[in-house]
């Protein structure tokens, strides 16, 4: 999964627990069926939090999660698809 396939991006860098999950939920609600939301976070806990949220949320499918380094900072990317 590359960023190209994401239809929308949510930037929650610099925000800690529980904000990444709450804002992901807010952005996810605004998606159309089939859309993929990219969430970019600096919170390492978001890896397990967003996974757990997607597992418990009907219509949310966690397509991919990736860790990268941007400007010397660890960045966690999540791709969530809204079911058709």
């Amino acid at each position, binding site marked *: 999964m590359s960023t190209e396939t994401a239809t929308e991006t949510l930037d929650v860098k*610099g*925000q*800690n*627990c*529980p*904000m990444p*999950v*709450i804002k*992901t*939920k*807010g952005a996810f609600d605004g998606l159309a069926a089939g859309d993929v939301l990219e969430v970019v976070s*600096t*919170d390492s806990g978001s890896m397990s939090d967003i996974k757990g*949220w997607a597992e*418990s*949320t*009907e219509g949310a499918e966690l397509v991919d999660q990736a860790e990268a380094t941007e400007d010397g900072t660890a960045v966690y990317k999540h791709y969530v698809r809204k079911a058709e």
Partner: protein
Amino acid sequence: MSADTPPSADGELSPDDVSELRAQIEALEAEVSDLRSEVDEGSADRMVIIATKGTLDMAYPPLILASTAAAFGYDVTVFHTFWGLEILHEENSKDLGLSSVGNPNMPLPNAIAALPGMDRMTARMMRNRIEDNDVASVEELIETSLASGVDLQACQMTIDLLGYDEDDFYDGVTTGVGAASAFQDMADADIQLLV
């Protein structure tokens, strides 16, 4: 009941029996679909938290859990009573206190922590740490919770007891509620927590 009527002597159902059975099946199907929609409507998971503490550290667990549960699709009520009311008090919530006295996890001996001004310093240090670690402020978490549909309730008896006014609380906070409504919510909830 006519369904119990034995079939005719040759073991075959008469057209009357068949149409009666058909009518019964239709009635049962309608009943099942009614029950199903009733269950679906009442299927939202619910959580109730009773927040009784008003120190800076204790403001976080109820607000973080409440807003997170809302993101998981839960109907959430937080009933604030006694010092938990401070969290919803618009002015006081921005200046919640914290004391090192009696907290063996804090790096200050009690004798020093008890000196005048030390509580304010402890609270300020904690607040700085919260900011440095990108953790949301109490105010932000309240706004987020309210925006997520969390019902933040202020216990009316404690409002009167502490001499507060309804206007002292954040817009959107529910007042005029008491133990009975909190208990009723708890009885209906899947998760009940006392913080």
